[in-house]
């Protein structure tokens, strides 16, 4: 085969691959407009987070001491807080915190869950039993309680919050992934791969994991909204992100409660931001679940 032919073939393969992606996206938008609306919200939020430096009219952490608690106006779209900081700018930077915690913790948590779920299903027996019992124990803690326990041990701060939000995700993903992986493990082609001498790691990650990718992706998106909610709750309790970092939950905590009557915008704006974010991820996650695997439909 000549180089030119090879190149042409590779180009063709790439071309169809990208076209297939574009086609899938198009179908998703046409068949699930609600999910697409959620995706738009998510994209807007990501843009706000990425370009916060460019969009934000003021420094989110530096206040003007003469501009305390100003009501919303043309200069300060959502007013200022008791430190004279621009609330709109803080909202923009807050999306950074929310998305970072949301994405990192649900990605890490789901991936650890995937590994444990696949390993349990593949090895079975004692190893599976041990993993299952461990997951049972982890799942016995209400989400926020185990998160609070982790923060209590590690102390507040963004990295620790990520750890705290990650922990409750793991067992929930592991369970779902294990259930799907069990049916894959029983397939003849796994037996075949084993008989040609593939190692356990290879079978688990190149043959089983890709086939449980749908439930993995569904759980991951489902937990994005939860993770953002959890971060906001922890920060609201003063057990999450610490000042002066902008976080929506934190913005509701101090000033939002203290100046409720005098400056209601402080209490309303961050809550709207949290709700819109969770709303977007929920809409997108639900549609993705329906599109990928209708059997997993829950409440």
């Amino acid at each position, binding site marked *: 085969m000549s180089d030119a032919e090879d190149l042409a073939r590779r180009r063709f393969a790439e071309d169809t691959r990208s076209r297939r992606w574009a086609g899938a996206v198009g179908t998703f938008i046409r068949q699930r407009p609600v999910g697409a609306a959620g995706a738009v919200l998510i994209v807007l939020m990501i843009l706000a987070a990425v370009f916060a430096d460019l969009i934000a009219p003021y420094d989110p952490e530096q206040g003007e001491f003469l501009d305390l608690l100003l009501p919303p106006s043309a200069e300060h779209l959502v007013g200022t807080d008791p430190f004279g900081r621009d609330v709109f700018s803080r909202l923009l930077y807050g999306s950074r915190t929310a998305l970072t915690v949301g994405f990192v913790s649900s990605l890490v948590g789901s991936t650890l869950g995937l590994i444990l779920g696949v390993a349990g299903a593949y090895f079975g027996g004692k190893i599976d039993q041990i993993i299952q019992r461990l997951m049972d124990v982890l799942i016995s803690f*209400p989400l926020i309680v185990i998160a609070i*326990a982790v923060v*209590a041990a590690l102390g507040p701060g963004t990295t620790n919050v990520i750890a705290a939000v990650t922990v409750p995700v793991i067992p929930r993903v592991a369970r779902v992934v294990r259930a799907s992986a069990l049916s894959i493990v029983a397939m003849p082609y796994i037996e075949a791969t084993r008989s040609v001498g593939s190692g356990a790691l290879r079978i688990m990650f190149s043959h089983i994991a890709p086939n449980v990718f749908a439930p993995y992706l569904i759980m991951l998106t489902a937990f994005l909204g939860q993770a953002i909610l959890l971060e906001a709750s922890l920060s609201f309790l003063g057990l999450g992100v610490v000042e002066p970092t902008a976080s929506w*939950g934190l913005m509701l905590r101090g000033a939002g409660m203290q100046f*409720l009557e005098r400056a209601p915008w402080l209490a309303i704006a961050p809550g709207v931001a949290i*709700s819109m974010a969770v709303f977007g991820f929920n809409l997108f996650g639900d549609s993705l679940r329906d599109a990928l695997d209708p059997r997993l439909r829950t409440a």
Partner: protein
Amino acid sequence: MQRYVVGRLLLMLPTLLGVAVLTFVIMRMVPGDIVELRYASGGAGVSQELIDQERALLGLDKPMYAQFVDWMGGIVRLDFGQSLWTGRSVLDEIAVRLELSIELAVLATLLAIALAVPLGVLAAIKQDTWVDYAIRIFSIGGLAMPSFWIGILIVLVLLTVFYWSPPLTFTPFLEDPLANLSQLIWPALAVGYRYAAVAMRMTRSSVLEVMREDYIRTARAKGAGERLVVVRHALRNSLLPVVTVISLEFAFLVGGLVVTEQVFNLNGIGKLLVDAVAHRDYTLIQALVLLLAFVFVFVNFLVDMLYVVLDPRIRYT
């Protein structure tokens, strides 16, 4: 059946033990030493002697396994140790706040069910009409809005529109039901909204599914009125998944309570937990985390038992 119940109860033991071990381990993840950390946060210089003394007092000079055995031994005798902050027994600290939190949880659950079941059924029988859409939008809101924010909004509306804020001191329900409810109904609403939203969605889809069954057609064919068909035939059979969801969501209820108690300044278990974390009161945190996990495991068990009552086809053997 009896054997099954006993078996389930026994099976809970290893899980509960695991919960205890995990709680213990997490609390020992604290970098450094609890005693040093507490004195260091006080700022003053403390002699090594005092630190050693305090450590011995808390049993921290013993090896890890001995500490765990001590702790478990105490729990069996219902002795959870002393709060590091107030010096009072942990059990007392919890006991004085338990009534409020339990009432709040029950109130929120009742509110949620009272909202969810009728609205869910209504949405199902009016499927794809504006009633259905309105109810669904209402429920999507409950899933997206954090309960503590709804709490803040409730306080805001009460303050600015009615110039009134809920009383801050807790009155037991039996003493003065009105005063009691005027304080607790608001946080219960804030927490119950999410709960209701989830249960509502489940009720709706569950009723829709049941309505397609043959026996519903039979019921209609024999001339039963629509109301009878829905209430007696459809609703009863669609309650099972709703109950499941209510038990699954119990974890969120607990979470919602922890945060919402803070908004309404209620002196309950949730506030105690948050304060304990702020004060680095490790004995108290340990006991509370354990307690909440126990309650959660136990509620799940109760719900499993409830299935039998709701669905005569289910018989555990």
